[in-house]
């Protein structure tokens, strides 16, 4: 094992290389590009024995991965934002075909207006497609999760998405422990597809299925997701045993006796940890629950952690327009109907890369601390107009009042 200072994107590349990916089909898009550039470089220097296909669009990138994976190769791609949306149609296909493709998605805001900065809506909008989703907090987690993702995917035959924040992770350099290849090889054996495109044993992939059979295919995918929960936990534990860093579905931080728990994902978690530590040092009973795996959504784990906590505040760097932040909505449906369910506050913050600083987190904790129940469905934090801060984007139980300043 060696420690290196790596950027988040390169942590993905190293993870893919250690996983001995065989086919990489990708299309450039900021801020993803370095992931595949580094992989292309590794191929050019013979450090990675893989075929790199620079396709002509993200739609084709996923289609090529589908082809490669169906042929039995370990397939990998990476994209972001508009690229992810363009390949959307194929995402359904990959999951429907039960192909364990692994993809890194760098969270970037959707257009227009055009932005290249961080926001989670792109990947969260794919939550129905049948892909496993891992949201990473650090470059170490990015690298480790990439390796685990292959193992999990190939076990449950579902594609997996490793998700990292644009720039706050993708372009940030920090120390990362890079496992030795032999250790990874022991952890992750070569992919043995149960079924593949094989001239000696022909099967048709992607045939038309009528109303008589389609439902069951979908049902099986849903069941595979249930299996995936177990797989993620087991693989995360095994990884911990081998490499000293264990992973699970969620990660609590000072949750035990907390009166207020922040629910976060990705890099906001990291900044929030600093704030929680600071407040804990002041004696405040605040904690944090990081959601690492969004699909399958860790209902049980979340309930275990949050039932009995008086107040929970979800921070969403995303938005389902006409609805809520997506973690927020998901969390509410997870806690719905449960005894001792907490009051859930939903915060939207940091869209389009607006910086989420410790001050932003303090503001959130202050708002949650000052009221028993949320007085609106969604709180917007960090809008530039001061008078607007914390005002609801309509849809509140009380009619939204526009403050004139």
């Amino acid at each position, binding site marked *: 094992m060696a420690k290196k200072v790596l950027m988040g994107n390169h942590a993905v590349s190293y993870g893919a290389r250690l996983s001995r990916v065989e086919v990489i089909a990708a299309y450039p898009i900021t801020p993803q590009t370095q992931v595949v550039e580094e992989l292309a470089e590794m191929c050019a220097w013979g450090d990675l024995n893989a075929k790199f296909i620079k396709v002509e669009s993200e739609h084709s990138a996923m289609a090529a991965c589908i082809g490669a994976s169906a042929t039995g190769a370990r397939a990998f791609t990476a994209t972001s934002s508009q690229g992810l949306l363009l390949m959307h149609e194929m995402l359904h296909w990959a999951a429907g075909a039960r192909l364990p493709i692994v993809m890194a998605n760098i969270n970037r805001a959707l257009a*227009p*207006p055009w932005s290249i900065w961080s926001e989670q809506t792109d990947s969260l909008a794919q939550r129905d497609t049948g892909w496993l989703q891992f949201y990473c907090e650090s470059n170490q987690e990015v690298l480790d999760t990439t390796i685990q993702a292959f193992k999990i995917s190939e076990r449950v035959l579902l594609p997996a998405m490793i998700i990292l924040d644009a720039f706050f992770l993708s372009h940030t350099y920090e120390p990362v422990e890079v496992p030795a290849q032999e250790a990874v090889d022991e952890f992750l054996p070569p992919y043995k597809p149960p079924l593949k495109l094989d001239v000696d044993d022909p099967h048709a992939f992607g045939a038309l299925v009528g109303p008589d059979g389609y439902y069951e295919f979908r049902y099986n995918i849903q069941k595979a997701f249930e299996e995936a929960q177990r797989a993620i936990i087991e693989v995360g534990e095994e990884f911990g045993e081998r490499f000293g860093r264990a992973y699970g579905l969620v990660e609590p931080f000072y949750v035990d006796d907390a009166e207020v728990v922040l629910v976060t994902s990705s890099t906001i978690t990291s900044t929030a940890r600093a704030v929680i530590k600071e407040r804990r040092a002041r004696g405040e009973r605040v904690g944090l629950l990081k959601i690492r795996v969004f699909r399958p959504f860790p209902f049980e784990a979340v309930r275990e952690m949050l039932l009995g906590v008086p107040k929970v505040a979800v921070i969403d760097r995303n938005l389902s327009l006409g609805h809520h932040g997506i973690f927020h909505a998901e969390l509410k449906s997870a806690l719905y109907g449960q005894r001792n369910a907490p009051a859930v506050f939903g915060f939207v913050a940091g869209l389009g890369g607006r910086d989420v600083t410790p001050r932003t987190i303090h503001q959130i904790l202050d708002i949650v601390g000052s009221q028993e129940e949320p007085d609106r469905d969604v709180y917007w934090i960090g*809008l*530039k*107009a*001061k*008078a*607007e801060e914390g005002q609801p984007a309509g849809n509140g139980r009380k009619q939204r009042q*526009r403050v004139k*300043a």
Partner: protein
Amino acid sequence: MTTAIRPESLPPMAITWDSTRVNKTGSWRYLRPVYRDKTPPCHAGCPTTNEIERVLYWVALGDLDRAWEILTAENPFPAITGRVCHHPCESRCNRGRFDEAVGIREVERFLGDWALRAGKRVEPLVPKKSNKRVAVVGGGPAGLACAYHLARLGHAATVFEANPEPGGVLRYGIPNYRLPKSVLKAELHKLKDLDVEIRTNARVGQDVSWDELQRQYDAIFVATGVWKSLPLRVPGEDLKGVLSGLQFLKALHQGQGQPLSEELGERVVVVGGGNTAMDVARTALRLGKRVVIAYRRTRAEMPAIPEEIEEALAEGAELIERVSPTKILGEDGRVVGIELQKMRLGEPDESGRRRPVPIEGSEFVLEADTVITAIGEAPDFAGLPEELHDEWVVPVDEWGRVLRQKVFAGGDVIDQPHTVVDALASGKRAAIAIDLFLKGKLDRKEADEIRRRIELPQGGLSMRRYVEDPGALLLDNTRIVEYEQLNPAYFQKIARTPPQERPPEARVRDFSEVKPGFDWDEALREAERCLHCGVCNGCDNCFVFCPDLAVTRNAGADGRGYPYAINYDYCKGCGICVQECPRAVLELVREGSGEGG
């Protein structure tokens, strides 16, 4: 952009219309492009510092008035130099490295002739007369040029000419078929326009004394020229039928053509390779003689203007190369032949030409009725004070001044090439020096400063820079544009426009002009070939290729200043404009170096 914004203050969707011009991208710049005209080599190489690039620019645009004004500021007689100049400009022309040099002389002649036909008048460059009087001794090109420029600078000039007519070598040396007397006469009319007094048949030391000049004039310019032929120094030189070239030509011009012709006999051998030799040879041809030119080196080394040699040969002269006379043979006191010795070319001498070395025993005889020598001339200092001159020349300083007195000299009597244009240049130099002298500035430091401002790298002094604000002329007189600095991508190969020419068999029958000169189309076409090295001609490249739209058209400029300006608020300093400037007007300087304003 850091001010507070409110969602409701934004347009209802991400639409914008505010200009990016609020972004001053000039702050990205490391290097700064600046416009800085330079001197083209033709201009620098012209002894009279003709602003050739500007003259051709305006000719190409059809504005002949403007072209002529610029030209006559430096050169009084374009119709003359346009015919007889040895055009050092053309040999330096950068276009010569690209395809063929621009036919500058022919365009100059076109412009000169046009002005004569149009009856153009020159005016003084300064509004007021000075009440100073200057004596000009010698009415050849140097003297006339000096008088011309003095007059334009407001001084009264009197020319003392020993011969019956002014013009010197222009009149008595150069044959009519090269420079028609009518053209000479018309050009000299400019002096009348400028109230220059010309006293003919006034030989100093004979018709007027040096002391008188010293007493009566505020300054004296001596330009008496070289009228003594150099002897061959071989046996038989005193035979009848041995003539000097100058003698021959002068006699002809003085109307003694017919008797002379009879004296010459049939076969004429001309010894020499300079312009005089060619003039002699071609004149003899026109008198119906068989002509042989004998020269010690090869044609390539002949000092005569190449066209002259070419035309002489075309007209039937025979050239014998690498021979030197050893003896002139005579019978009854009269030439019957010339013995020539063959030469081979040895090591180069100080002039850079290979030295002829005699080949022993190679002598041979050429039959001849007349031998005309044209191997060089020497001045005749008769009538001038001893202290003014040494054996060969009148020594002068860099201003053309003699012995720090009020005496100045120019033309062939000083140590400079014996060419018409150098003579004109020395006259101009003296006129400027005399102007400074008369204003009491010549011995002061100021004179050096002025010189720095008006002197071009090859030593010529610019009258335009002398009388006008040099800043307005833009031209940087310290730097010459070399071919390597140009971007030839924008130039297309276009053949030089050949001047029309009368056929040799027709032209040897008379003394009429060999070439009729350019017509309008030809002149414009040739002027358009000028590359305008170092001088902005508004080609638009910088404007079109600026990625930052930082180059603006300066449409209000009135012929001064550049047609473009750079808006440094936006210029990112990429240097494309510099690279793509075909003529090296633009250059890059380091940002913050203080250069280029």
